[in-house]
């Protein structure tokens, strides 16, 4: 059976530090305003009986991805291992995928952000100089499940860096994989599951 990559986000462990957000930006050289994973928070209750939940979000690499469905150029496609990618050579930047994604996890690259640089001052750092060339202005970009790392047997950057081990990545087709075990043991569920995009990212409470 082929590999089907997925992820589990452990809400009990997540502390909302957003190390994942920055690790992803450092890994992928994404420009200002674009983050492929972000951790949100939500306050629940009224003082003094109040708490806060931290909610990590990332592209769900849906099995029935609406973004792939609506892409007019087939730039957005799904690999055999279930990773949803964008072929930046084909993308025309129409944004249909952005409005089709229920999780708003896709974005369009704008030239102004590259020109201004991360410091918004026009001064581009050597880091950015070696990182930006991978991007095509005007195209859509998204999380790639770090497939270049995964191909080498590494874990995605956000998973590796998470200080509390709240992110677990692996093969959902293998019942003995870490994510599968976690989903079973702690009753994993998906975000907006009823929208039927068949997300491959699960959450456990």
């Amino acid at each position, binding site marked *: 059976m082929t590999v089907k990559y997925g992820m589990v986000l452990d809400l009990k462990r997540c502390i909302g530090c957003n190390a994942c957000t920055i690790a992803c930006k450092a890994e992928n050289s994404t420009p200002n305003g674009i983050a492929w994973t972000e951790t949100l928070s939500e306050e629940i209750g009224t003082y003094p009986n109040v708490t806060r939940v931290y909610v990590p979000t990332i592209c769900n690499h849906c099995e029935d991805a609406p973004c792939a469905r609506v892409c007019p150029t087939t730039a957005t496609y799904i690999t055999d291992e279930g990773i949803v990618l964008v072929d930046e050579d084909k993308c025309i930047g*129409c944004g249909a995928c952005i409005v089709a994604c229920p999780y708003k996890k896709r974005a369009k690259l704008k030239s102004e952000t590259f020109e201004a640089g991360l410091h918004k001052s026009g001064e581009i750092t050597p880091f950015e100089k070696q990182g930006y060339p991978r991007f095509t202005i005007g195209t859509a970009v998204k999380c790639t499940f770090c497939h270049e790392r995964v191909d080498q047997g590494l874990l995605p950057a956000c998973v590796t860096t998470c200080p509390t081990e709240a992110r677990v990545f692996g093969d959902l087709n293998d019942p003995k994989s870490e994510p599968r075990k976690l989903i079973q043991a702690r009753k994993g569920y998906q975000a*907006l599951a009823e929208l039927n995009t068949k997300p491959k990212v699960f959450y456990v409470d």
Partner: protein
Amino acid sequence: MPLRTYDIVGDEYRVGYRKQDAWGWKIALAFFFGDVGAGTFFVSAFYNYMPGMIFGWILTTFFKPAALFMHLGQPLRFWRAITNVRTAWISRGIVGAILFTGFGFLHMVNLKWAIFGPALGGIIFFLAMAGTFIVMIYLGYVLSHSPSLPLWNTGLMPVISLVYGLMGGVTMTLLFGVNSFLAADPAALHFLKTAELILIGITLISILSMLHGAAYNSSTGMATVRQLLFGEHQKWFLGYVVLVGIIAAGLLALTGSTAIFILLLVAITELIGDFGLKMVLFKSALYSPPLSHSTV
């Protein structure tokens, strides 16, 4: 006070409704030109009314792509947009536009110079009309093809899209033709004016139903509708779409007047409503909170 509430959040790291911000006035304009152009051609073609057909054809063939080029991130690759007819409504819509452009042109040529025989001419006409029909309706399918934005995810969208296209076509045809072919064809005039009123009525009901459906679909839908009725987009929606585009247009149409000035006003108000609706649909759309389920 509810224990768990959601607000519309910007790019704040807070669970809430997030705004759609990838589609704006440029692509709204593209769809607008396509809609109105296809509609005008469609309606005019039934009466072989050349000026209307030319106007519609130019709008869809030149103005629509121009607006689209402004919107696209990589406009020079636009030709790729037809490669996913298998699943993507945008591809299908562009194919429709190409059918319209190509066969519409051929039809107009045929109409003027009758160079194709009746059989071929009939096929050309059919394909041209199929193209215009697709162009009028496909926005609705594009919007409702994904569950991402509750406001858009309704079966009424293609109806609304089509109806606005037809309405634009009818008002423009009336405007252009009132003192030419319609002066000589009172039955056609009467039909078009009745059609106009019916279409305005269908528009009103469709929009009300769209609101109703969205409001009772989910909290996101309700939040979106509240923005349209009471919030940030009240001016555009209640003002431009409803008051100007439906009520004013409707009242003006109800007068039954065929004065060119009135017909112009009807066209303008209707077009304002058309563009206004596209804009407000795009700007007000909200994404659902990513995870309203968590219990920790």
